[in-house]
């Protein structure tokens, strides 16, 4: 299952026309302890780059942007009680939402793991 990354530090796993989105381990490290995750509405239509949800940490409240266009199909309800999952497992159990993939061509503009690591190293 290929994984892509954005410059705003989201990751997206793609499985056919379905995808899972979260923030990267680098992003959670920068934010510090996550205290609250405001998830999007189920079924919401997302455009590429739309501000979808908000992650609150002890340092800041940060927007999370949709890496691609599509509709929200599922939310990580566990985050309501355990926002710390985003700290402990940002790129697995700390996923934020699942969505459909409206245009697979949009993935071409995203980075792969190696490119993202190079990008982060330059920050």
């Amino acid at each position, binding site marked *: 299952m290929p994984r892509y990354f954005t410059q705003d530090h989201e990751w997206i796993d793609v499985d056919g026309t379905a995808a899972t989105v979260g923030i990267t381990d680098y992003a959670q490290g*920068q934010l510090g*302890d996550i*205290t*609250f995750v405001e998830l999007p509405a189920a079924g919401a239509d997302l455009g590429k780059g739309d501000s979808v949800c908000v992650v*609150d940490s*002890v*340092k*800041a409240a940060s927007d999370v942007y949709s890496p691609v266009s599509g509709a929200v199909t599922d939310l990580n309800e566990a985050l309501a009680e355990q*926002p*710390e999952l985003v700290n402990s497992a940002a790129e697995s159990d700390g996923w934020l939402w699942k969505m459909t993939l409206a245009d697979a061509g949009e993935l071409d503009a995203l980075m792969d793991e190696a490119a993202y690591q190079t990008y982060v190293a330059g920050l």
Partner: protein
Amino acid sequence: MNELNPSGWRPSTGEIGTVDVPPTFTGNRALQLEEPLIFEIGSVDQCGVDLPDADDEVLPGLPLRAAPVDLPGLSEPEAVRHYTRLSRQNYAIDLGLFPLGSCTMKHNPRLNEKVARLPGFADVHPLQPQQTVQGALKAMNELAHWLITLTGMHGVAMTPKAGAHGELCGLLCIRAALEARGDLREVILVPESAHGTNPATAAFAGFRVENIPATAEGRVDLAALTARLGPDVAGVMITNPNTCGLFECDMKAISDAVHVAGGYVYCDGANFNAIVGRVRPGDLGVDAMHINLHKTFSTPHGGGGPGSGPVVLSEALAPFGPLPFSARQADGSVRLVEEENAAEEGHSQAFGRMCAFHGQMGMYTRALAYILSHGADGLRQVSGDAVLNANYVLRSLDDVLDAPFGAAGPCMHEALFSDDGFAEGFSTLDLAKGLIDEGFHPMTVYFPLVVHGAMLVEPTETESKAALDQFIGAMRSLAQRAKAGDPALKSAPHMAPRRRLDETLAARKPKLVWREA
């Protein structure tokens, strides 16, 4: 004497840290007193004052409470001691330097308080006949005149009750001006380094917010801003000097570009303290700017009620300013302009009002006392000394702390540092907590967001060189401990009424109501 403490000042703390001190019977630490919640000391069975029995006929027909409210009853000395003890666990500008960046925690002169307590100002009512409060109205009008003159603007809306309320007032003026010309633009541009209230205000006023990036020097990216301007942009909100403590050198070019594109310029005046008496925002093309009277003009922060955030307006926006306002008449008297007489004063396009009455009199009188006691030349010295003090802090610390924009030249009223270079595992939070042990309120931390691990220090003009040297000595000591990875710093504060609190747990699982265990 010690190089970290050049003034040689030392509190008489004896041998702290050299012996293990057992906890006291009371939980008190000398004069630092433990204090339970008021619900834990008061009893619902007793009452500190004698109240008459409730008389049903006093409130005929009203739904009277069937069960007692269970308020804790305390005697007068118990109540006084409870709140006095709590106040001693607090920190205040009257206790010491309060270096919160962007907040301008300057001394509140006692002369202001004396003036504000004069019965002709303190004991008047907003519904009193205007001929009986001419002195108060003239004071309001004189303050308005000073604010217009100091900012080089055309008009002022005095009624907003705080900075963010002023922002809302300014944006509603912009909206009214756009509606008046039938041009419903919906986007407000906000730089990354803006105060958090700016995008919140724009969204609240019904605009869509878009970010403008900063340059590597910490200023608004003029090219990026100009490129984004267009027929959908209602205006920009810019803080000048900005939250990195830097003057926006391109401000005039920004204003010109925004005006050519048909938009308006809102300036967040939170940092006016750095430029008062030297720069007039009106000359920079600003259309609206709020002034936090509790920052630049020394009224108390949270001083017994609402604050005051007057908004100065350009010629283009002034006709849309809210009602009521004071207007001087040909005979020298002052009257309030309300809906019924707005047309007579040539002000029939007001967008509405920001509050029921004419604003916060107690803040007006304090600000006017401050302005008149300083005079125009004194206010010019205020901004000069504020900038001098900030640069003294910046240059006294930039060899031990990373100063992200330090190489770009002098700062304005606040000095920005980061935790870059601290030992592994040490961050801004640790240094801030260490400052509590040193007897200072911590500086602003993790803001502005554009700097990682930011520490924003605003000394203000009211600190003496001796006070700054003491603070600088403490900061140098803490910076060296953070760089060396001193484990004691990681668990600071050690000497405060409470040790380091679990802020994450408090945010994740806040306890917002008291319940009996």
